[in-house]
């Protein structure tokens, strides 16, 4: 039997067989490649709640650079980083963290970055405050208790860049009429997306969440010019000289459009040109008739 096998080997394959076999394999592998390629597009979408480590390249570049070695996971002192596993929504083998359960503690020396062998975590990032892992967003003003007029400020207080990344905006509490609302405001120019605020949010489901920046941010159309900025740049109005607005008010009365409203310049009570009685205004010109 071995002899016959040997003989058929000696005879070799015909050109027809060879080409047929090659085409078959090439087509099979080609189809497989198409399948893998398309499936990979789906499998490569990072879910909104998975946050990449600091310094991670933009997602599409990251997936070409990260070789799934897990070195960053090993050198994270707080053990917050995980690798995506088959069946997870995160692309298999790539590092991420979940802000609600384990946020980035923003180590000053950023130990996860220098161990990355391929620059998937950009070694140029040396100041953790410059990291942009995502952006915190106060996603629900209906449940955030600050909007209900209760004192909380937990997100503001745990923020590692407190006062810059999250500030408190004092607003009038219209419900009670006499209290203030302490509204947390996130500033994208300072927020690193570390997720400490999301972790700390006292709600059962956090009202402040870290999202990938592209999901969290709006973007003004490129053609927009903000008049006041352009004016400042140019040192004056660009369209026409600012004309003083005339209201044709009685003497001693001015009007401020931006807040104060009607301003009475009167020196004494007698000189007030407008009566305090509204009927006088309505009946103006009818006196003695």
């Amino acid at each position, binding site marked *: 039997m071995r002899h016959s096998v040997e003989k058929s080997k000696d005879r070799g394959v015909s050109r027809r067989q060879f080409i047929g076999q090659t085409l078959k394999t090439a087509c099979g592998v080609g189809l497989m*490649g198409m399948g*893998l390629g398309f499936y990979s597009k789906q499998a490569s979408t990072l879910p909104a709640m998975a946050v990449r480590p600091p310094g991670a390249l933009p997602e599409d570049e990251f*997936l070409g650079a990260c*070789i*799934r070695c897990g070195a960053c996971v090993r050198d994270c002192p707080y053990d917050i980083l995980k690798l995506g596993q088959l069946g997870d929504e995160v692309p298999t083998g790539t590092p991420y963290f979940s802000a609600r359960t384990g946020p980035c503690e923003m180590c000053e020396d950023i130990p996860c970055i220098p161990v990355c*062998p391929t620059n998937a975590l950009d070694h140029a990032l040396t100041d953790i405050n410059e990291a942009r892992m995502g952006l915190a967003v106060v996603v629900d003003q209906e449940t955030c208790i600050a909007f209900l007029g209760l004192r909380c400020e937990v997100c503001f207080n745990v923020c590692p860049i407190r006062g810059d990344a999250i500030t408190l905006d004092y607003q009038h509490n219209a419900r009670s009429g006499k209290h203030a609302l302490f509204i947390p405001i996130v500033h994208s120019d300072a927020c690193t997306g570390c997720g400490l605020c999301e972790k700390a949010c006292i709600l059962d489901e956090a009202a402040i969440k870290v999202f990938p920046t592209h999901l969290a941010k709006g973007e003004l159309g490129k053609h927009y010019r903000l008049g006041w900025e352009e004016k400042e740049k140019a040192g004056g109005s660009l369209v026409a000289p600012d004309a003083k607005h005339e209201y044709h008010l009685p003497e001693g009365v001015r009007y401020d459009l931006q807040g104060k409203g009607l301003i009475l310049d009167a020196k004494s009570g007698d000189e007030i040109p407008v009566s305090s009685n509204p009927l006088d205004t309505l009946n103006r010109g009818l006196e003695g008739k």
Partner: protein
Amino acid sequence: MGKTPLPVGVEAIESKGWLKAHQWLILRRLSQLLVIGLFLTGPLAGIWIAKGNLAYSMTLDVLPLTDPHILLQSVLAGVNPHRDAIVGVVIVLVFYLLVGGRVFCSWVCPVNMVTDLASWLRRKLGLRSATPLSRSTRYWVLGLTLVLPLATGSIVWELFNPVSMAFRGIVFGLGMAWVLLLGVFLFDLFVAREGWCGRLCPVGAFYSLLGHWSPVRVTAVQREKCDDCMDCFAVCPESQVIKPALKGAKKGIGPVIDFADCTNCGRCIDVCAEDVFRFGNRYAEEKHNLSETSESRDQQNRFIDAA
């Protein structure tokens, strides 16, 4: 194959004893487990020896090792690797160039244990099936894994690669990757003999190309003692590599198994009751083959004994 064959390896166990007849198999399993163990002491006991996984690792904070296949894919996707990654890849390339590329497959890769189990079961159960896949398919798949990052800018193969997924799974958590490994096992058991490692796996194909020039080879030094029991063919994961060296004396083919597909697993050495095979240095063997006489054959044996 004329005589009624005993179960594979029985003659070897009878003549050499169980231990000697499983020597290389045991060493290989120890090597595979040792590699996994080096990565597991950290997460399990807090003693950090090797960090990372087979894609890239840092051992004792000094020795970087990088998988050349995956680094190549990331370079094709447009990455400039860092110094550690490059040092690591050079070390790995040199190592496998010397010992044989597919030494990775049989001595390191964790999937080998799965596919070995499948082919052992296949032999036990006497399963045979016409294999639909040619052994060269893996080189096409290798090409595919290199084209995909070029086309998509992303390391697509790593979303599917059972090799890295198995090892990463053991070290970092398996997730659903066991399904993939079960798939590989069933594929090897029922669909194609050595279907994954021998026909499809692009990682093996890459290492196989790498081992093209490696000096460490199995050689059938005592091929005239072969009694045609066929045990080596039965256990060899790349059985096509054996015949020229074992049976090619008449055609003037040397006794060195000169195929990069050979994984240097040493199972043929184990199961041969006649001790036909040994590990040897290919280049030394080739020199001897030029003047092949019974004297030089004796010298050769002595050389290999010394080695």
